[in-house]
C-alpha cells in the first residue's frame, strides 16, 4: 500500500510561501549591490544613429550607462550583431542586448543604466537620448503571410493518404480560418536577476525554468567554463514558458556586474516583460474537414502560419497534435512560419497544442452542425483506437471514459442541439465541448539521494518549481520509495550545484525527474542490500534488489516482511555516515512500441448577454486522463489554473500591436486582461486514472499544459451554441458578438 503516492498532500513549501520566507530571484541580496534599469528603444527597425548618455551619467547615483558603444561583446566570437552565429554546442542563438546599433523590434533594450539605488537608475534611464535611422518594418503577420515558409529544422511532415482528392470527394465538408493574437504569459513575478562575480566565477540568482540552460548561455556569453557559473533559482513566481529560454537580462546583468566589479540587480518592469521574453505567436489557421454523412472523417487539411522574428526561427508546431487526435486516413497538417519585426516568440502554456486544438475542435463543432450530429457523438464516431499517425497502440488512453464521465457530470444529454435554443431569463445559454491532448514526454534527468543513519534523507535535482508542486511531489516520491515519513525527507532544486535535470516545461518534470528520484531511491535500497549481504547471517541472503523494499528504517523482503535488516544498523556495521546514490533516468526503449499521450474532455456552459455581448463561463467541467495522479491536491489546483488560462485565451487575452509603429499598445495588466476573480465561476476538474506501465516507472503523464488545451475551443463552441455566431478570431470580445 502506498503511503504517499496518490494521497492528498499539502505543499511542503506552503509555509515558506504564506509567511513570505520563500525567496524569489529579485530578493537575494549582496553587499555593495547596484541597480540596473533597462532603457527600451522606441522604433521597430533600423539603426541607432546616436545615443547620448551624458545627462544620464551626470544624474545622482549613476555608476555607468551601458550602450552598444561601450558594452563588451557577448558570445564565443561575437561575430554577428545580435547573437553568436552557430554555437553548435548549445545552438544558442538567443537575443543578447547591446551588441550593435541594430534595432530588430520595438521596445528593444538600447541601454542599461546602473546606479546606487533603483530609483536613481530609473530616473536616469529617462535621460538617455536616442535617435534612429529607421527602416520599413513589418509586424503584421496578416500582411506577410504569403511569404510563409516551412521551418528549416526538421523535415516537413508528409501527407497521409491523399488528402486533396479525399477532400474533393467528401460528401460533407467544412472549411474555415481561425486566428489567435499574440499573447503574453504575464506571470505575477517579473523577471529578475542578481549577478555577482568573484574573479571569473559567476553566481547568478535568476527567475528561470532551466538553471542548466541559463548556465550554458552565460558560459558561452562570457567565454568561461560552465563550471564557473552557478545559477540559483529556488522559487519562481510563475513562468508558463516565459523562462524556458535564457532571456536577454541575465547576460546583461552579469555583463554589468563583471564590468563594474560589483553585484548588480536588474528587474523587468511589467512593461519590459512584453519584449523581454517571447510570447505566443500570432497564428492563422486554415482547416478543412471532409466527412461521410455518418460523421466518419475522410479528410483533414490543417494549415497553420505563425510569425517568428526577423533574426531567429521559432516553430510552435501548431498542427503537431492534429495528426494524432482522430482516426482519419487522409491528412495534411503543415505549420509554416513567417518573419516579422517583433521579438522571437516562445513557448507559452500548452504551446502549439492549445492553438491547434482551438482550430481543430471548433472545426469539429462546425462539422457536427453541418452533419446535424451531436458534437460529442461526432468525436466518438472518430475516436482513434490506435495512434492514427504511427498505427501503434496507445500505452494508455482513457479519453472515452473522460467523455462519458464529463458528459454525465455536466448533464450533456439535456443539451438542445439548435443554437439559441437555451435560455436563462434574458441571457442566452450555450453548452460546448472539446478535446484536449498533450504528449507524455520524458527526458533524461538525474537525481541524487543521501540517506543518513538517523533516517533522514536529502534529495536533489536541478529542476525547478514554477508552481505546480514539484518540491512536494519529489518529496513524496522519495519518501515513498525510501520508506520514510515525509517530514524526514528534504528535496532541493533550482541550483546548478545539483544534478542535471531538463527544463521545467512541456509537462515532463514528474515523469523525468520523478523517475530519477524513484531510481535513486531504489539504488539506495540496492546498495544497502549489497552491504547487508556481506554479512553471512543476513536474513536477506539471496535476495535481489527487486525483491526488497524500505520501510520505516528497515530493508525488508517484499514477499516476507518479517525478513528484514535495520538500515541504520547496516550503515553502522559498514562505518558509513551516509549512503549516497545518483541515478540517471532515461525514457525506456519500450516506449517506442507505443504511442504515448495524455487526453482530456472539456464541457463548458456560457451565458451571453444578448444586449452587450458579454460572455460569462458559468460552468466548466474538465476530465483529464494523464496516467497516475501522484498528488491529487496539487493536480486539481493545476488543472483549475489551466481551465482559467483557457478562459483568458478564449475571452480576454490579446497583445495589441499598432502596426504603424510596430509597437505593443497594451504592455501592462491594466490593458492586457488576464482572468480576474469576476471571470471565474464554477470550475470542476476530475481525473480518470490510467494504469500505464509503459510511459515511465511511476506511470505518470504530464498535466500542466493539458489543463488548458481544449478550453478555448469548448468556450467558442458554447458561444456559437448560445448565440448562433461563429467567432473564429480570439479573443471573443463583446464587439464580435454584437
Amino acid at each position, binding site marked *: 500500500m502506498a503511503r504517499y503516492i496518490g494521497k*492528498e498532500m*499539502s*505543499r511542503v*513549501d*506552503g*509555509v*515558506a510561501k*504564506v*509567511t*513570505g520566507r520563500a*525567496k*524569489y530571484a*529579485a*530578493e537575494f541580496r549582496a553587499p555593495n549591490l547596484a541597480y540596473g534599469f533597462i532603457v527600451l528603444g522606441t522604433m521597430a527597425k533600423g539603426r541607432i544613429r546616436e545615443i547620448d548618455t551624458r545627462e544620464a551619467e551626470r*544624474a*545622482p547615483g549613476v555608476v555607468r550607462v551601458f550602450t552598444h558603444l561601450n558594452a563588451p561583446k557577448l558570445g564565443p566570437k561575437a561575430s554577428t550583431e545580435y547573437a553568436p552565429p552557430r554555437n553548435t554546442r548549445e545552438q544558442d542563438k538567443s537575443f543578447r542586448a547591446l551588441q550593435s546599433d541594430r534595432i530588430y523590434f520595438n521596445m528593444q533594450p538600447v541601454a542599461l543604466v546602473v546606479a546606487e*539605488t*533603483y*530609483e*536613481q537608475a530609473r530616473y536616469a534611464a529617462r535621460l538617455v537620448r536616442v535617435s534612429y535611422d529607421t527602416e520599413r518594418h513589418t509586424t503584421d503577420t496578416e500582411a506577410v503571410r504569403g511569404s510563409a515558409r516551412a521551418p528549416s529544422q526538421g523535415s516537413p511532415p508528409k501527407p497521409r493518404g491523399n488528402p486533396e482528392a479525399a477532400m474533393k470527394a467528401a460528401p460533407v465538408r467544412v472549411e474555415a480560418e481561425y486566428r489567435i493574437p499574440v499573447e503574453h*504569459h504575464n*506571470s*505575477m*513575478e*517579473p523577471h529578475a536577476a542578481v549577478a555577482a562575480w568573484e574573479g571569473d566565477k559567476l553566481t547568478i540568482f535568476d527567475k528561470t525554468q532551466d538553471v542548466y540552460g541559463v548556465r550554458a548561455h552565460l558560459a558561452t556569453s562570457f567565454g568561461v567554463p560552465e563550471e564557473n557559473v552557478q545559477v540559483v533559482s529556488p*522559487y*519562481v*513566481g*510563475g513562468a508558463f514558458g516565459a523562462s524556458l529560454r535564457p532571456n536577454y537580462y541575465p547576460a546583461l546583468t552579469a555583463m554589468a556586474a563583471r564590468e563594474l566589479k560589483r553585484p548588480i540587480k536588474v528587474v523587468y*518592469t*511589467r512593461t519590459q516583460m512584453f519584449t523581454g521574453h517571447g510570447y505566443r505567436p500570432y497564428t492563422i489557421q486554415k482547416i478543412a474537414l471532409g466527412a461521410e454523412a455518418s460523421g466518419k472523417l475522410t479528410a483533414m487539411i490543417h494549415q497553420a502560419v505563425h510569425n517568428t522574428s526577423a533574426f531567429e526561427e521559432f516553430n510552435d508546431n501548431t498542427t503537431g497534435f492534429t495528426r494524432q487526435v482522430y482516426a482519419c486516413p487522409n491528412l495534411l497538417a503543415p505549420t509554416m512560419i513567417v518573419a516579422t519585426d517583433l521579438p522571437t516568440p516562445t513557448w507559452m502554456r500548452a504551446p502549439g497544442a492549445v492553438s491547434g486544438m482551438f482550430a481543430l475542435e471548433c472545426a469539429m463543432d462546425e462539422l457536427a452542425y453541418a452533419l446535424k450530429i451531436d458534437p460529442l457523438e461526432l468525436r466518438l464516431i472518430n475516436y482513434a483506437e490506435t495512434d492514427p499517425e504511427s498505427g501503434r497502440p496507445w500505452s494508455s488512453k*482513457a479519453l472515452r*471514459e473522460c467523455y462519458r*464521465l464529463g458528459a454525465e457530470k455536466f448533464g450533456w444529454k439535456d443539451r438542445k442541439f439548435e443554437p439559441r435554443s437555451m435560455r436563462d431569463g434574458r441571457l442566452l445559454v450555450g453548452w460546448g465541448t472539446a478535446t484536449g491532448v498533450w504528449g507524455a514526454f520524458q527526458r533524461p534527468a538525474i537525481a541524487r539521494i543521501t540517506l543518513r543513519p538517523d533516517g533522514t534523507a536529502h534529495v536533489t535535482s536541478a529542476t525547478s518549481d*514554477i*508552481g*505546480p*508542486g514539484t518540491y512536494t511531489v519529489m518529496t513524496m516520491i522519495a519518501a515513498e520509495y525510501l520508506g520514510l515519513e515525509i517530514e524526514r525527507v528534504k528535496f532541493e532544486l533550482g541550483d546548478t550545484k545539483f544534478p542535471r535535470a531538463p527544463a521545467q516545461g512541456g509537462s515532463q518534470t514528474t515523469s523525468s525527474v520523478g523517475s530519477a528520484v524513484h531510481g535513486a531511491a531504489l539504488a539506495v535500497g540496492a546498495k544497502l542490500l549489497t552491504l547487508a549481504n556481506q554479512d553471512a547471517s543476513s536474513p536477506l541472503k539471496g535476495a535481489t534488489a527487486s525483491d526488497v523494499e524500505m520501510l520505516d528504517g528497515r530493508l525488508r523482503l517484499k514477499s516476507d516482511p518479517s525478513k528484514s535488516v535495520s538500515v541504520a544498523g547496516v550503515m553502522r556495521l559498514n562505518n558509513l555516515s551516509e549512503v549516497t546514490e545518483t541515478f540517471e533516468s532515461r525514457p525506456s526503449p519500450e516506449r517506442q512500441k507505443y504511442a504515448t499521450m495524455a487526453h482530456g474532455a472539456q464541457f463548458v456552459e456560457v451565458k451571453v448577454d444578448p444586449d452587450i455581448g458579454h460572455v460569462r463561463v458559468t460552468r466548466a467541467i474538465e476530465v483529464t486522463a494523464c496516467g497516475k495522479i501522484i498528488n*491529487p*491536491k*496539487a493536480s*486539481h*489546483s*493545476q488543472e*483549475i*489554473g*489551466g*481551465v*482559467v*488560462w483557457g478562459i483568458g485565451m478564449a475571452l480576454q487575452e490579446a497583445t495589441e500591436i499598432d502596426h504603424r509603429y510596430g509597437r505593443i499598445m497594451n504592455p*501592462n*495588466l491594466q490593458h492586457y486582461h488576464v482572468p480576474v*476573480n*469576476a471571470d*471565474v465561476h464554477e470550475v470542476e476538474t*476530475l*481525473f*480518470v*486514472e490510467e*494504469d500505464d506501465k509503459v510511459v515511465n516507472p511511476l506511470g505518470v503523464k504530464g498535466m500542466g499544459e493539458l489543463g488548458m488545451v481544449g478550453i478555448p475551443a469548448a468556450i467558442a463552441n458554447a458561444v456559437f451554441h448560445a448565440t448562433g455566431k461563429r467567432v473564429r478570431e480570439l479573443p471573443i470580445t463583446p464587439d464580435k458578438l454584437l
Partner: protein
Amino acid sequence: MPERTKQKTHIEFTLNGEAVEVAFAPHKTLLEVLREDLNLMGTKHGCELGECGTCAVLVNGRSALSCLVLGLEAEGRSVETVEGMASPAGLHPLQETFADTGAAQCGYCTPGFLLVAKELLAANPRPTREEIKEALCGNLCRCTGYIKIYEAVELAAARMRGEELELPREAVYGLD
C-alpha cells in the same frame, strides 16, 4: 541635481506590531522601503502600477497597495505585512488554509491575497463566495484559477468562528 534627492527622510511607524525607525529618500514608495530598506521581501513587487495586488499591505488595518503609497505616508501609522501575520502561537488561520488547500501555487500573489483576506474577515466573519470575490477583486493570480483561494478563505473564516468546514473532496476516478 537638487540636493533633496540625496537627502533622506527619517520616520517612525509601527511595523507588524513593533515600533521601527527608518531613513530613506523621500520619493520612495512604501513597497521599496519595505523591500529594500527594511529587507522585508514578503511584500511582492508585481507591477508597481497598482494593477496586480501583489504589494498589498494593511495600513491601520485597511488594505493598501504599497506600490502606490509613499513610504512617508507610513509615518505614525501601523503597517502590517505578511511577515507579521503569524503569532508566537503559530500561523494565522488564513496562512494555514492557504498552505493546505493549494491556494498558493507559485506563491507570488499569496501575501497580497492573505492581507486583503484578513481585512475582509476582520469586517465580515461570514462572507459569502461573492463577497470574497468582491473583496479580492484587486488581487490577480495567474496560477491557481482562484477557486482554491476562495476555499481557503472560507475554511479560515469557519475556523476563526470556531467551526469546521468540509471542503469538496478531490475527485480521482479509476478505470473500470
